[in-house]
């Protein structure tokens, strides 16, 4: 992996992290209200995966924890922040909020706040690709807890049976909200479930953007070659609460510290240093992103609120 790629990934991950940190501040100041799910610690997944996709035709279907996906897909932080702030300039004009915005112009076909519901929809996107000649690959991303939801099961079998080009990407952060997922399954190696559907299943380090990129690129290739769906399991940890305000009393002592030591930005910076990148350069890179997101926040905060007179638009055609 080249140093350029490493720094490019680092920049995307910083952009995600800084956006999340900004959202967190704006949530605590109550400029943003309501339930917000941050993805701190999971940035390498989005960053690596998007590098392997062709967003001109491929389609990503994330969950409520989707800010990072949006940024990795290229949605400007301002459009994300404005969305959470209920501005007209929000990526969904304030209709979606933190947990349900969509950015089809960027290949990001919607967060989904119903656990697992995006998986069958991604199958539909892949199905459409069979007829529109696009060669589209659909990537449905969800947490490991979603693996116990019926809709995900149906989607996996459907995709496998129909040899649809779908990548099921499990972001295994080991928690289903406040419950350790290993407590509600017998076998928490979720990639092994792939064989039930006759799919390939692969587990890898989800904190390493290159490992993610490689796994997704392999899966994309299989999909484009008509070999059908793939189940990917990216091992990671969230280093924040499930929602803002979650004090994480459920995490065993030391777990969070270990997760913070292994988190993808720190990891990437270590690798960059090992590859000879200087602290100054790394600090400058980060500062550039901090400034960018800061400007985005200012712009979002000063944008006009979405207009209540428009709430009845777009219900029907």
């Amino acid at each position, binding site marked *: 992996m080249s140093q350029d790629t490493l720094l490019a990934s680092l920049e995307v991950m910083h952009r995600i992290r800084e956006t999340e940190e900004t959202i967190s501040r704006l949530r605590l100041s109550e400029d943003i209200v309501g339930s917000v799910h941050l993805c701190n610690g999971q940035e390498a997944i989005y960053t690596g995966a998007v590098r392997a996709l062709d967003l001109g035709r491929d*389609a990503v279907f994330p969950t409520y924890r989707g800010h990072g996906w949006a940024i990795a897909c290229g949605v400007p932080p301002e459009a994300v922040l404005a969305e959470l702030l209920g501005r007209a300039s929000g990526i*969904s*004009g304030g*209709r*979606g909020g933190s947990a*349900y*915005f*969509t950015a*089809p*112009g960027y290949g990001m*076909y*919607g967060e*989904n*706040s*119903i656990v697992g*519901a995006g*998986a*069958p*929809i*991604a*199958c*539909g*996107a*892949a*199905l*459409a*690709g069979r*007829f*529109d000649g696009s060669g*589209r690959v*659909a990537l449905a991303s969800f947490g490991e807890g979603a693996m116990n939801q*019926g*809709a995900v099961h*149906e*989607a996996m*079998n*459907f995709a496998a*049976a*129909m040899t649809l080009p779908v990548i099921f990407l499990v972001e295994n952060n080991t928690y289903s909200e406040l419950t350790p997922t290993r407590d509600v399954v017998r076998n928490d190696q979720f990639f092994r479930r792939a064989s039930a559907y006759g799919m390939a299943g692969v587990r890898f380090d989800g904190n390493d953007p290159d490992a993610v990129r490689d796994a997704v690129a392999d899966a994309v290739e299989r999909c484009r070659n008509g070999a059908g769906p793939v189940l990917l399991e990216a091992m990671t940890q969230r280093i924040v609460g499930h929602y803002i305000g979650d004090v994480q009393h459920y995490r065993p002592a030391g777990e969070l510290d270990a997760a913070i030591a292994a988190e993808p930005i720190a990891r990437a910076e270590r690798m960059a240093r090992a590859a000879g990148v200087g602290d100054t350069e790394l600090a400058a890179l980060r500062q550039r992103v901090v400034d960018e997101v800061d400007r985005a926040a200012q712009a979002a905060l000063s944008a006009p609120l979405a207009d209540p007179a428009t709430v009845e*638009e*777009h*219900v*029907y*055609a």
Partner: protein
Amino acid sequence: MPEIIEKTLSYAESVNAALSRALEERPETLLFGEDVAIPGGVFGVTKGLRRKFGERVFDTPISESAILGGAVGSAMFGRRPIVEIMWADFALVAFDQIVNQAANVRYVSRGALAAPLTVRTQQGNAPGACAQHSQSLEALFAHIPGIRVCMPTTNQDAYDLLLSAIWSDDPTIVIENRTLYHGAKQPVRIGGPVQAVGGVGLRRSGSDLTVVTWGAMQHRVLAAAERAAAEGIDAEVIDARWIRPLDLDSILASVQRTGRLLVVHEAHTTGGVGAEVVSRVVESGVQLTSPPVRIGALETRIPAAVQLAARVLPGDEDILGAIRRVAHDVPAGRVEAMPAGAR
């Protein structure tokens, strides 16, 4: 747009003709569901379409979430999926995909995306059918903004409304009825312009009271209306075939003339769409000469035995009794007979 020709078709054949036309004229249509392709449907409704249209018509696993989700997703990407949920009762294993997914696509994306999908399903009781295969669930669908719902009853409507649904850019639920599929053949106009969504069907003109109904129940309503006519009660019968959007104006125009309103549906009375019709009418301020009446299934589960189900669902006598009651303002009848506990 094919020229209009008249064919003599059963209800099932009318549905098939509409599907065939849609698949023919609109290459973006897909047709899928359990047993719909190679077997031609458990009721034979989709016969021949796989052979004619190849892999745009396909069979699925028994996975309603995948079917409906596959419809939502493919519709977001330019396809126009028509999916079958074999019984409306089965939609409940995957209701999320309709209410929380399909209904939101256009709204949240502010029109950048759409979900022009059609769900064909069928519902209601048939002889011997159990409680899990007998419900009339249109009220559940009709409560959801973003969704369109229709219930074709005539063979012509089976053709017309389905095409309107498929042509519509909104997620639309077409609720058919298996007891109608293989009934009498009738002349059906095939071809011609596809009608916009909405509107009622006037099934019988009359001046004494307005009976609003929909679904297979209207055959009983029409029979009861004829018997009432013999007694000198002249009932107007309106088929509110589009449940959402409901064509209130047409209903109001009739009620304004008759001053009396009866709603008859096969669904359970409590929380049924009849309540919506009655409420809209009385909210309008129109003067009623006697209180409106609703007739629907009794507030019980639907038993399998024919004679039991016949007691639960509105029968000819019940409907005739209600017509008399509304026409003559008789303060008694089936609605009051509900046990208090079941309300």
